[in-house]
């Protein structure tokens, strides 16, 4: 990846809203690990926020349980545009061990559009950080295309 291009993206901080749709907390612990001094994501301006209204990115963990179905849709709708969705873990990606379970509405992409998948059970913090980076690049491209569309 072009270092100069990456540096351009790091000029702006990225706010992430973490949403657990039925995860066992394994992925959530790895997300928190990404914020600990070992990886220290916040030095790049990547931080977790308490409301989707402040977020650029939705970080979703777990398969979508029936109870969470409406809530996931609502949180997605409440996130301002442009937005990116990252799914962390095998369960959110495909249903994982809960695939076809009676109380699961399916993987996250059955409910909301997903931009980046980070598979693993749970994925390592490095993989999650890479996923966030991919989403960041996608988001910046989206921003630029929105800007050019507005200019036209």
């Amino acid at each position, binding site marked *: 990846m072009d270092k100069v291009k990456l540096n351009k993206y790091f000029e702006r901080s990225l706010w992430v809203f973490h*949403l657990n749709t039925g995860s066992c907390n394994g992925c959530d612990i790895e997300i928190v690990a990404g914020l600990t001094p070992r990886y220290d994501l916040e030095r790049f301006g990547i931080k977790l926020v308490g409301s989707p*209204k402040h977020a650029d990115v939705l970080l979703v963990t777990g398969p979508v349980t029936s109870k*969470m179905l*409406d*809530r*996931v849709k*609502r*949180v997605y709708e*409440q996130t301002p*545009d442009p937005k990116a969705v990252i799914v962390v873990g095998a369960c959110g990606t495909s249903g994982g061990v809960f695939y076809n379970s009676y109380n699961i509405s399916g993987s996250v992409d059955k409910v909301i559009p997903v931009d980046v998948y980070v598979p693993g059970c749970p994925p390592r913090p490095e993989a999650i950080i890479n996923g966030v980076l991919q989403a960041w690049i996608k988001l910046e491209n989206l921003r630029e295309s929105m800007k050019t569309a507005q200019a036209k």
Partner: protein
Amino acid sequence: MLGLLETGSGFWSAIIWVLLVLVIGSMVIYIRNKGEDSYKKNTEQDKPFISGNPEENKESSHLSANHIYWGFTEALKGYYNPLIKIHTGNINDYSGWIIVITVIILIMVGVSG
């Protein structure tokens, strides 16, 4: 009326007050207009975030002042419950209470006097 009023601990001027209101008001309007305006109106982006839960209607989400005293009334339930029972809303009951209390006071005054 519009002059400077010395109060001893400061001063008051209606003109300065009006000017300040105008200046601060314009600053507030300016900052507000700088805010995000690209959100989609009349969608979920207009509504408050309540952990993904739907927004309740205003009537059912209303917090009345007595909610603040919930712990207080709960702790003093033994005192409040009989009091609430006594407050029947029937004027005859209240008149009865006045007569009974007056009789008791008169007896007490009569016995002690």
